[in-house]
């Protein structure tokens, strides 16, 4: 731990890293909302290095009752998830989302940016206005860039708020994302079946063949 207490060169007028760490700690402790690195930096004296200070702070709080979490480009202190049971008084009653809303949210999170039509294709039903509205109202999704395709449809993406709520550092940390990608379930088409035998779909075909023969 001695290295934490390094002192600055006399020529360097910026505060010692140890001191910068304290500053970031104080700034983040004081807010409930995640702050971006530049927001943090703006509140520190000139010449500070919030990124390094943050990295050190993350380490310091590892395993503690409070953790320093990354939320997209921002940072926030959050209590450790395993201690949630102690916070009954603080627990916010979570609004129960309809199945349609949960599915739509998952589709947006895993497929983003995604158009309404694409959501409908995946779900096989039209997306009711209310579903999108609820997600927008919760601040979990927002409009992304318009798709550069005929009609320039709007797209939806998840927000930093979504990441914060679900304790994700980035959308790359979505559970199961890698497997979904590997199995091709995030593409809009079934994976090409060059050799049907080695895809998961082969049995379907084989099965059909059996039926055909039976018929």
């Amino acid at each position, binding site marked *: 731990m001695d290295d934490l207490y390094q002192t600055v060169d006399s020529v360097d007028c910026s505060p010692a890293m140890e001191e910068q760490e304290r500053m970031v700690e104080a700034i983040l402790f004081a807010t409930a*909302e995640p702050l971006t690195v530049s927001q943090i930096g703006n509140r520190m004296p000139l010449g500070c290095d919030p990124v390094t200070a943050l990295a050190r702070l993350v380490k310091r709080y590892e395993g503690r009752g409070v953790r320093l979490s990354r939320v997209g480009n921002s940072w926030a202190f959050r209590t450790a998830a395993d201690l949630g049971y102690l916070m009954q008084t603080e627990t916010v009653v979570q609004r129960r989302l309809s199945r349609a809303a949960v599915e739509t949210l998952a589709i947006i999170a895993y497929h983003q940016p995604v158009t309404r039509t694409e959501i409908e294709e995946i779900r096989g039903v039209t997306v009711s206005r209310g579903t999108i509205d609820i997600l927008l109202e919760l601040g979990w999704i927002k409009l992304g860039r318009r798709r550069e395709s005929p009609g320039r449809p709007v797209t939806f993406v998840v927000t930093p708020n979504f990441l914060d709520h679900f304790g994700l550092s980035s959308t790359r940390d979505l559970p199961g994302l890698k497997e979904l990608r590997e199995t091709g379930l995030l593409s809009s088409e079934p994976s090409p079946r060059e050799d049907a035998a080695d895809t998961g779909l082969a049995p379907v075909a084989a099965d059909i063949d059996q039926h055909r023969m039976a018929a």
Partner: protein
Amino acid sequence: MIYLPRTPSANRRTRARAMDSFPLDISEEHAFEDYNDGPATSETFIVDVDGYEGPLDLLLALARKQKVDLRMISVLDLANQYLQFIEHMNRNRIRLAANYLVMAAWLAYLKSRLLLPEKPTDDEIDADELAARLAFQLERLEAMRKCGTRLMASDRLGKDFFSRGCPEVAETRRHVSFTASILDLLQAYARVRTRDDFTPLGCSRNHVLTVKQALEHLRPLFRQALEWGNMLRFMPRSWLANQAHCRSATASTFAAALELAKRGQIEIRQSESFAEIQVRARRS
């Protein structure tokens, strides 16, 4: 969740024993109509309130019944089951939403294509490919559904982890910085000096008794004027020596007298044009 309207017969038993194998969901109100027809039959009308959300959802539920990995699913079996279900609903005069019927028609077509070993024409897509595509859609929907469930079950802010309970409000200090340019400065100086240059335009006030001065002079005097008297008698003495002063004083005194009359403090009278103007304090 959509709860069906309650009818007097609680725990309503209607037809469709087969419903046991089709946990029927009412997802959208228009999805299944006329379900209330013929409540006399004794069979249970099971309504799963969790609701199917469209034909794909129903298909997925049916596919799950095959109890295999979705990748191993028999699309043909699935098509059969779906068509059976639709037929069943029709038999019971339960009208289905159009999209269920569209799916039924498509599946009937797919089934025929799968069963008939004829080669597809050029503009037709291979039936196996259609089947694979359907399987893919089901698998994808299932995956997304699982992701949603997993997401909702994950640690959540305000439930499993918490933000700072008493955030300290960052005080915003407004720092006002004033600016002025050299041009502002020069123009200001020019303005000031120009103003100076123009002061001579004002006329000299040395020979003028202002109305204000006249008022101040007259007010105490008039108060004592209980009888009618010539207004000119009340003029400041020092202003009478000089002709110009006297003229100014006369005009101002007259204006002041009118002002006092207007305020109801004195009365003024003049018997005829150019006659003496007389004033006296107003009697209350």
